[in-house]
């Protein structure tokens, strides 16, 4: 017992899930509702929902150096030795709910073309699944995440049912973009949001705090604590502050027998189970497999392909912004209401996918200016008037094709709070990704110029950064030499070990990944249940 919380293991359970982000929480909720005995182990704490307003203030007010979700320190130490810096701890949250506590909450399906890039364009690798295979799971995932959306996107893949909640209507600033886009022949449409446009049993409707990323005080934005609550209501046990140190297997090396985890008092425990699901995110998942090396598996668990940690892929941000000579009404809400997927599908392999986002939160808010200003009173007011009011920006995500040299590996020279080698994120950009970013900038600039914007910033190939979508590090495939998990999400090497999350993605397109993660989690749950 630690602080009144029992963190000792349960007896051998049906399923042990590592990680309580959306991937793990969905699997746990599915299996628990089917009557299976489930234990979830998460490395981070349970955050008290009553603290969310205080976390919002941490975010909005400069000076308090505590990270909003307590990331950092020895627990979360990492290296980033690639050509590009990778700010890993800005890109994830450890704790019950996982990175969805911090996320933005845009949720779209991948396109049909995303699953067959090699056969259509001769680039990258095909998924071993088609869009049609995932389609029912996408629909179920949208229900699970109470997605607010509309069927007005002419570029979206076919869908059978409407979204569970109505889309958020377009913003005033969207209407400014719409005119220019029409002039240029660019079709715009709504954005599917995992955010309550209407109240549901699990959360109230969005009340417009405008701080979705990094924290929604009202709980209108979906986060995985919803599925954790469902899983617990159906009898699952969720243990926080229980980082799994390694997975251990039987003598034959066929099955995982236990997850060895540490608790805050420094003890190690073993949780035994019939099935194991690793859902620790795209960096910690491969790291845990690598840390679980044994005599039988000297290169790490489930790694007979040598591909655990390889093909680390992210989306790149591309954006252009400036000022208009009229009010643009930014910063009322913290999410977007219009996008364009017109430049998404690729006509050849020369560039990757581009997703355009019309921002509702360009430029600083008045409080941002005020708390950093060197002026006071009426002078300050004048300064804020200059900074807020006319800002406008188009952002977007750009695809990076997977490359084996981008990878997550262990850094033997540094250890974390438990003495384990930290993850080393080796990441770089290739020529084609740069070209795609440039193309995105070109389109973005043309729209802003059509509107008469005085453009004053560009995020292009030189100053771009990752969108914090960690994909590819345990890729899916049918050939055990070329992939880590099968289309069932079970590892090729171990009969009762599944890996769920964006690490299983073969390619990542340019869509935010979590709806696809949720769809895969639901699919994996079916397969785990079949084996139980």
């Amino acid at each position, binding site marked *: 017992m630690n602080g009144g919380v029992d963190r000792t293991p349960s007896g051998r359970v049906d399923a042990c899930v590592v990680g309580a982000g959306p991937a793990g929480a969905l699997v746990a909720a599915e299996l628990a509702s089917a009557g299976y005995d489930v234990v979830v182990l998460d490395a981070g704490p349970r955050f008290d929902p009553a*603290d969310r*307003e205080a976390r919002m203030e941490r975010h909005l007010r400069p000076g308090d150096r505590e990270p909003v979700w307590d990331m950092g320190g020895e627990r979360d130490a990492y290296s980033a030795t690639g050509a590009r810096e990778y700010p890993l701890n800005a890109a994830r949250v450890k704790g019950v709910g996982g990175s969805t506590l911090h996320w933005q909450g845009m949720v779209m399906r991948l396109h049909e073309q995303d699953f067959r890039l090699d056969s259509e364009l001769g680039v990258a690798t095909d998924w071993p699944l088609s869009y049609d295979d995932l389609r029912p799971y996408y629909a179920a995932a949208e229900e699970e995440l109470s997605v607010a959306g509309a069927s007005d996107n002419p570029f979206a893949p076919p869908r059978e049912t409407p979204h569970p909640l109505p889309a958020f209507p377009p913003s005033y600033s969207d209407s400014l973009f719409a005119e220019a886009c029409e002039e240029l022949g660019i079709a715009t449409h709504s954005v599917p949001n995992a955010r309550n446009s209407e109240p549901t049993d699990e959360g109230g409707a969005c009340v*417009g705090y*405008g701080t979705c990323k990094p924290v929604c005080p009202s709980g209108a934005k979906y986060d995985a604590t919803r599925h954790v609550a469902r899983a617990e209501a159906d009898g699952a046990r969720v243990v926080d502050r229980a980082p799994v140190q390694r997975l251990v297997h039987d003598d034959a090396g066929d099955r995982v027998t236990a997850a060895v985890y540490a608790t805050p008092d420094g003890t190690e425990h073993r949780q035994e189970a019939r099935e194991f699901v690793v859902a620790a995110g795209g960096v910690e998942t491969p790291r845990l497999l690598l840390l679980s090396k044994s005599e039988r598996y000297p290169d790490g668990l489930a790694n007979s392909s040598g591909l655990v940690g390889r093909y680390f892929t992210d989306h790149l941000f591309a954006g252009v912004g400036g000022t208009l000579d009229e009010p643009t009404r930014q910063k009322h809400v913290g999410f977007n209401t219009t996008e364009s997927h017109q430049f998404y599908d690729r006509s050849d392999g020369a560039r990757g996918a581009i997703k355009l986002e019309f921002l509702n939160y360009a430029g600083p808010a*008045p409080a941002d200016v005020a708390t950093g200003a*060197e002026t006071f009173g009426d002078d300050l007011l004048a300064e*804020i008037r200059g900074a807020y009011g006319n800002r406008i920006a188009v952002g977007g995500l750009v695809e990076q094709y997977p490359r084996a040299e981008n990878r997550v590996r262990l850094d033997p020279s540094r250890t974390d709070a438990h003495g384990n080698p930290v993850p080393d994120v080796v990441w770089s950009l290739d020529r084609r990704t740069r070209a795609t970013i440039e193309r995105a900038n070109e389109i973005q600039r043309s729209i802003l110029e059509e509107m008469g914007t005085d453009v004053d910033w560009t995020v292009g190939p030189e100053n771009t950064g990752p969108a914090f979508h960690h994909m590819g590090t345990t890729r899916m495939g049918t050939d055990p030499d070329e992939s880590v998990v099968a289309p069932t999400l079970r590892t090729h090497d171990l009969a009762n070990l599944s890996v769920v999350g964006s690490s299983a993605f073969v390619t990542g397109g340019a869509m935010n990944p979590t709806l696809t993660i949720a769809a895969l989690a639901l699919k994996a749950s079916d397969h785990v249940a079949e084996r139980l």
Partner: protein
Amino acid sequence: MELDRRDLLTALAATGAGSTAGCSSTRRQATDGGDVSDHDADTLVALAEVLYPSSVSNVGEFVREYSLERVAADAEYAAGVAEAVGSLDEYVSEWHDVPYAELPTVERGEILRHMTVDTADPDPDGVARERIRYYLVNELLYAFYTTPTGAGLVGLENPPGHPGGTRSYRRGPDS
């Protein structure tokens, strides 16, 4: 431009002082609060008169209620404010016989610049001018510009931190 009761509640909500439950890991701890002294309250009002635009009325009432309410939820904040007020008065005492709160308005602004509070980084654990910036100046600016009245002065009636609903983002500037 009047600050009203709604702004006060908003300001309290935005700073988390309105929430009831404790929070162990965040700086704003909902421990038992102390009282803010009359002098601390007077000093905050005196500062707000310099920091807020001159067109704003009711500043005194807003700040008094805001500070008192907030401190009721947060003893650590009260200590930080009191300590920062002490530092400010100590600085003022080198030139004047009265505390900061009793200085004429013009001199209140000058003191902040002279002490380089205007260029100081807000830091609750920093040197005096950095703590003054954090606990007094930014506290007041944050409260004001996360309310519809403060941010509304620049055309943003639903600023980040304010749960102002999902209609305003759709409205144009003239509606």
